[in-house]
């Protein structure tokens, strides 16, 4: 046992230990226990933000309705400032050689939840349209100063009455730029 040296504030450091001696770390004073802890979840992945964002997007689309493809791009843009900057840049300086499409992995769940909550409806042609309740929510958000400002700023930049044709004119159509067409007809 003389080979074992208790480590304490007064114990010599390992460089000063005699040859063959080992440092023994004493047991902790309190029992060690572990328990599952709730994981932090980014605001953009939370149902509340996603539902509010979908309502705001649809409120800014022509006829308060949009296709799933449009929603994927706009939700992707809204969820991150860097994405928003890319959309803004391409929207303002659209070129025939570029096309932007993006995918928001949680969109399907968000739309299902929004439909169940009565915030949106689905038309037979698959377009998602804002319901009266969803419209009230979007209006309340717009009326509340300082609420979801970044999101509203981007949507206002895109014109506030976004039609599908105009959106793809600005963001390009995949494949068409390869055929050398300069714009949509």
């Amino acid at each position, binding site marked *: 046992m003389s080979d074992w040296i208790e480590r304490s504030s007064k114990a010599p450091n390992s460089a000063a230990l005699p040859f063959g001696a080992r440092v023994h770390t004493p047991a902790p004073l309190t029992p060690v226990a572990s328990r599952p802890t709730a*994981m932090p*979840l980014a*605001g953009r992945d939370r149902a509340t933000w996603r539902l509010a964002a979908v309502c705001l997007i649809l409120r800014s689309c022509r006829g308060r309705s949009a296709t799933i493809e449009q929603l994927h791009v706009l939700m992707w843009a809204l969820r991150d400032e860097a994405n928003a900057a890319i959309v803004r840049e391409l929207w303002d300086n659209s070129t025939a050689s570029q096309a932007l499409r993006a995918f928001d992995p949680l969109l399907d769940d968000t739309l299902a939840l929004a439909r169940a909550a009565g915030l949106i409806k689905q038309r037979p042609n698959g377009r998602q349209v804002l319901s009266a309740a969803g419209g009230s929510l979007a209006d309340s958000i717009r*009326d509340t100063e300082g609420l979801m400002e970044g999101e509203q700023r981007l949507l206002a930049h895109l014109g506030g009455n976004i039609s599908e044709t105009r959106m793809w004119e600005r963001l390009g159509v995949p494949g068409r730029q390869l055929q050398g067409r300069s714009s949509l007809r």
Partner: protein
Amino acid sequence: MSLRLVEISLDVLTTVGPLRYRTRFGPGLNVLAAPNTYGKSTLFQGIIFALGLEGMLTSSRAAPLGPIMTTVADLPGNNRAAVVESSVTLTCRNEAGKYLRTRRFARSGDVQLNLIQTWAADSEGGLESAERIDTYVRLGGAAVQDLGFHRVLAKFLGWSLPKVPTYSAEEALLYLEVLFPLFYVEQKSGWAGVTPRMPTYLGIRDMLRRSVEYVLGLSTLDRLRALNALKDELAEVKFRWSTAVERMESAAAAENLRAAVSRSMTGQTQRVATRIEADIDGTWTTLEGAVARWTARLGELEGARIATAGERTPQSQVELAEAEQLVRRLGGQLRTYTEQMSYVEADLDALRARLAAVEADRRRLKDIQRVRALGSDLGVAVLSDDLCPTCLQPLDDRHVATGEAASVEANLVLGDAERTTLIDMQSVAERRLADLSRARDAISQQLDHARGQVRLLRDELVTESAAPSLVEVREQLWLRERVAGAERVQALVASADEELDSLAERYDYVRARIRRIEAESTNEEDKHLLDTFNRSFREQLGLYGLRSLPPEQVTIDANSLIPTDEGVELRFDIGLGMSASDTIRTKWAYYVALLETALKSTSGHHAGLLMLDEPRQQETAKISLAELVRRLGAAATEGSQILYATSEDVEDLEGFLEGIPHERLPAPGERLLSPVGWQAS
């Protein structure tokens, strides 16, 4: 000073003819009993509109009145007609017996919504001949400019509105829109939640607390103002401190010196005099030591004859070899420092990007909290309570089942901790970068000097032997410059140090005063008012039959001035046992207790007016309502004016009002506004 409503007239001109509702108000309890959709809320909203106070309900600039006053009016016999013009005219009296009449158009081809016409007189009859003064509302300056209506109204009420802290650096007036939510509960969303609904878009900090303090006349508001003045002074002292420190640092850097001074403000006990250091052969030494060394060397050079280049050749050869070696060494050091700086800069970029992401997420989480409140108002359970709209199971606020997600509040706490860590790491990295930059600048200057020395020695070795040594002349000049520069910095630091001493003294004084004010216990008058407020509140909870928890367990917190259950904010929560009907009971008790207490306060600012639009919500028991009406009747006899709109069953209402002095406001016809002098077809 209180506000008495005397008369109101709602006038609508339709394409078919005029509609009107006109009534006078009694001084005490006024009851408007009529069925749903009659237009009771239109009357109350009309009062708020005529006083330009709709900003207490919404940030929207539209008139808060229904279609009957703005677009299409329903006429008797299921007919409809377009509204051409509409206005509300309200006559009020103050405690001094003066009268104010206001007229505001909700729809007009000529008059804008922001304009309120006013007439003031010493008697009601005098209003007819009084001069009309046009004022404005819901525009910047409406509460401060002479023609701003809210300034006129505040003056009429005899109120001097205090300035209170906002969420920005500026202070704002405690606007009338922030006070009137304590005097009026509207039907649509006013009964949601336990506490009064406040116009949060105005950005005033602790809005409800500040309003209640002002209405009750608590001295805490004065203390807050004193505290804010001291905090402003503290900010100014801190600004002057950092300016003085920057002045010292930049003066030192200009002479290739470094100043060791505390950038963060300290009091007198921790105050340490500034130390200036110079880099001597790669080691930072005190300026005094460096100056002594430079002066001694200067003395040596000045005391001896300047050697000729020829005499100095062997020495110059040795010195040239040394100087060339020094140039190589310093060049290596410079590269190392530059490399280290680029690493730290890359770290800093990463830290800044992460901090920006954390702050963006923090804003988003705060938004989520506010959207939840909207969800609660709109009755969207998935937003307000994270309940699945189909199976009503808790949603845990996320879509993906990858483990239990932290609540927004817990997430915010975690985010704040991460933010603090990142800010600390950023400031450490910035300090390190500044140290490296200073060291690199010093080495760079030494390198320049060494290169110059190499050039000089090479020149000297090829120059005429009889010429005086340029190296010695140059060294003398260099030493003189260094000593003179050091003296300039020492003089500047001495004066800046004096300023820092006096700032440290002022810092101690301001901090001590802030601590004293913060430690001051509530004064006796405040204590008495808060006791009265609490007593009245709890007594009413008992009378109204609060069931979710024992009334004696509920108190109005002396700091936040909101109802709490053993220190926890009371809110509608089935999980915690607070039912919706008990939320309504709590709200009645809060409003009435505030009115009763404020009227007893010598420095209170209650308008003496309480407007309750359909207070029986959530199927609150009739027995509770009977008690409320009795209590309102009692408050009315004490000098308050109470407007109570209800769609109660007539018999029940007669029963509630039995023995209580009151006025019944007229409610003829099917709708509040009825045709005047024409027969609707």
